[in-house]
């Protein structure tokens, strides 16, 4: 076989084998190809982050710059979303509100993810009496309605961005630890874990190197789902007056100002739309990630869309043999 034929042949064979990308890039590619709604959701989340980060550049006015327009001015070219009762530009407040939602969403999800991972992993891996005790505490925690705990704690600690984020993070973290725990239980009896134990790997190393990477999928899903829930929860407690202190805008807080909504519908519509779109986007993204990462939903042919790992190995062997021959 000529060099050209060898190269042509191996190219044809390699075309049949999907390229191996790093995990996140592969995930992104499959998200775009297979989950259009999830992609839309991802774009929405990305826009949220960018708006939050670049809020001072995007907002034409400060969030508390009063009388930049007349009070309760309708949407116009000067003020795209109108103004509120003290002449503050609503578009600017929506943009800065995105920052709050981003902080709270990201922060609470991160704290929640860490907490869920820590509790779930320890409880699931160690098992026995430790697991029983921890799970009973989690049971007790989950008996209380979330809003009740939120309002009680916020009434004690007082309103504030940090307080809201931490409280929501703890709330979701403890509740989500169950999911992490069940995943850990399902993998802890796998052979590779047994092997690690057999060779004397310390528990911490086993957890970090073997358990954690294999529970990343549910953690990522929990992260996105909790993000949407955290944003909604922050909106709820701000609506009730226990959330972000004024005059910092928060979408929920803006929705709670009902006094002028009959005469100025834009005061309710824009924050409501922003909240709806963001939560919708996050939920769609979370759904898509769940579909992509859940092994039970991969189907019989696995994640490579019809090409099994065995087939890939076989093809690689054939390429190697063809190369040697030539």
């Amino acid at each position, binding site marked *: 076989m000529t060099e050209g034929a060898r190269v042509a042949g191996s190219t044809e064979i390699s075309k049949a084998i999907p390229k191996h990308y790093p995990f996140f890039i592969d995930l992104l590619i499959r998200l775009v190809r297979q989950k259009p709604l999830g992609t839309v959701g991802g774009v929405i989340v990305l826009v949220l982050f960018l708006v939050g980060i670049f809020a001072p550049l995007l907002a034409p006015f400060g969030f508390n710059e009063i009388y930049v327009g007349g009070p309760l001015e309708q949407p116009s070219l000067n003020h795209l979303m109108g103004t509120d009762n003290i002449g503050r530009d609503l578009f600017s407040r929506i943009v800065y509100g995105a920052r709050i939602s981003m902080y709270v969403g990201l922060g609470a999800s991160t704290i929640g993810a860490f907490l869920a991972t820590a509790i779930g992993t320890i409880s699931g891996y160690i098992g026995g009496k430790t697991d029983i005790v921890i799970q009973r505490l989690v049971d007790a925690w989950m008996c209380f309605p979330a809003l009740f705990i939120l309002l009680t704690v916020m009434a004690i600690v007082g309103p504030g961005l940090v307080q809201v984020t931490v409280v929501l993070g703890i709330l979701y973290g403890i509740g989500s630890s169950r999911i992490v725990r069940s995943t850990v239980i399902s993998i802890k009896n796998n052979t590779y874990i047994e092997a690690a134990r057999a060779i004397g790997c310390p528990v911490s190393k086993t957890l970090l190197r073997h358990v954690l990477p294999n529970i990343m999928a549910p953690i990522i899903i929990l992260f996105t789902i909790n993000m949407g829930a955290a944003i909604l929860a922050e909106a709820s407690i701000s609506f009730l*007056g226990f959330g972000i202190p004024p005059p910092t805008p928060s979408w929920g807080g803006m929705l709670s100002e009902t006094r002028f909504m009959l005469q100025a519908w834009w005061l309710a519509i824009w924050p409501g739309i922003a909240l709806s779109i963001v939560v919708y986007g996050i939920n769609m993204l979370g759904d898509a990630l769940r579909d992509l990462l859940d092994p039970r939903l991969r189907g019989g042919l696995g994640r490579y869309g019809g090409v099994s790992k065995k087939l890939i190995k076989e093809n690689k062997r054939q390429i190697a043999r063809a190369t040697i021959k030539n």
Partner: protein
Amino acid sequence: MKKHPVWLVLSVIIILIMALVSCKQTTTTTEGTGTTVKGQIIQRVTETPPVIPPSVETPKYGGTFVYARETDIQGFDEAFTQHFLADTLHSTNEELLSHDWTRGPAGTAEFDYQLPGINRLDIKAGTLAESWEIPERGRMIFHIRQGVSFQNKPPVNGRELVADDVVYSLNRLMTEPRSYIKAGYPAMCAATTVTATGKYKVEIKTSEAEFGNMTSLLPDFANIIPHEVIETYGDMRDWKNACGTGPFILSDFVAGSAVTLTRNSNYWRTDPVGPGKGNKLPYLDSCKMLIIPDMSARYAALRTAKVDWCGVTWDEAANLRKNYPTLKWAKFIHDTVYVIYMRTDKADSPLSNLKVRQALTMGVDYTTLKDVFYGGDAQIMCWPVVQSKEYAGAYVPLEQYPQEVQDLYKYQPEKARALLAEAGYPSLKLTIVCYNTPTQVDVLSQVKAFWEKIGVDLTIDAKDYAVWTAAMTRRSYDQMLYSYTSGIGTFWKMINYNGTSQFNGSYVNDPKVLEAYTEMQKYAGIDEKKMDEIHRNILPYVLSQCWVITRTTPYTYYFWQPWVKNYYGQTANGYYDYYTAHNYAWIDLELRKQMIGK
């Protein structure tokens, strides 16, 4: 799955249509004068309300007057519930004195009785006391009206009121530990004796120091009750036990829902003035108070004529006036106003520095607050007293102050910034505690925006009601507190900038003020006009010290149906005697039937 994109697209289209429909050129709509601030301004009612002349129609009997009120009745016994919260007492019971109705809007119109805290002896008339004397400071004699009977219900059964009832009632309020008078004025209670010197004569003696307190509380802040009720039931806390000499009998109470008062056919008073002079009162068959906590529901009830009377906020008033022109209305500045208190007592605090306080005062654009935020429907100078007919002598309009005081209330951010720098605070961080309601937050957000321009970073620490109330009553805050002042009736105590009460929220302890206060006390209960003069004279100094940051205060409105006659927008017929508008009012049933068919 295919449905999701379809719904998403439809939603986006609907939103875009709404957005396009709403986007239009701004137009300036003004109904009056006002400052234009970068866009359209909604001008509200700026003119004074139409003067409602004294009624010339002959009053008719019958009908029910219906109030819409926000809060429930807090109690029925003044010994356990504060006078201004036990609202039905003002209809079922009476005090020794009350406002002179003949000098009000139904008569000579010298006064309009809109402020609830009006408490001047020189405008009162006898109620259960036919007349009174002050032979010397420290002594007051009341001649009890003869022929007045308690309501005809057991255990009192309609017997005549005598001096002993007055003695009993006043002593009870001065000894019952939970009574507001006892708890709030222990020194006055300890120094005061009330005795019956005849069947219809009561003498009250107190110390000279407590004479002012005594004259402001016992004649028109203490309802007279029959001792039999207390002896039989222990107290009057159960509404069924309510009994007095008032024009109405409490006939029903459903907590959180409604109160019903029916005419006392044995009531002693006759109409003192107008076409109905000499007629037995009350004219109404009954009076109902509907408890409607939700503001929009109250306004809806007013608009649909389910209620005859409702208190309305300034922002809704313009809408009602425009869309419901048949409704009658009145407006006034309520005598308890909100201000920003400051810790002037802490030596290490920047707020103890006069220049800092003056700079903060100059840094607030009161005119914009008045003309733009409130659409012109507000007043700037409302502290330490508001403008009123009754206390015209004690009030000074802003334009009559010395120029240096007027300049403090002009918006001068550059001067404020310079003053702060001069004081050693080119930048300043301050925190204010407030109650987490939209009205408070909106005002403070504007103050925050104003102060940002002078280098002051204000943090708004919005608390829930209980925490804010605690901070207010104990004056336990670090730097600034947004809270309200005392009513006008206590102006003679200079309570808003002197003493240890919650209303001296700025911890003012000034020798000039103390001097004026000492002088004022000599005339308390004796010479109201002299007290007005002393107060007027000290005001320029008080305002120059900027002990509080005043708030431009919006008007409070009352709206009522056109068939309600002989009512002129007054709040109370006595000192904090809320919900007594119906005592002289009558319903034109024919007019009502014409207008709403029933």
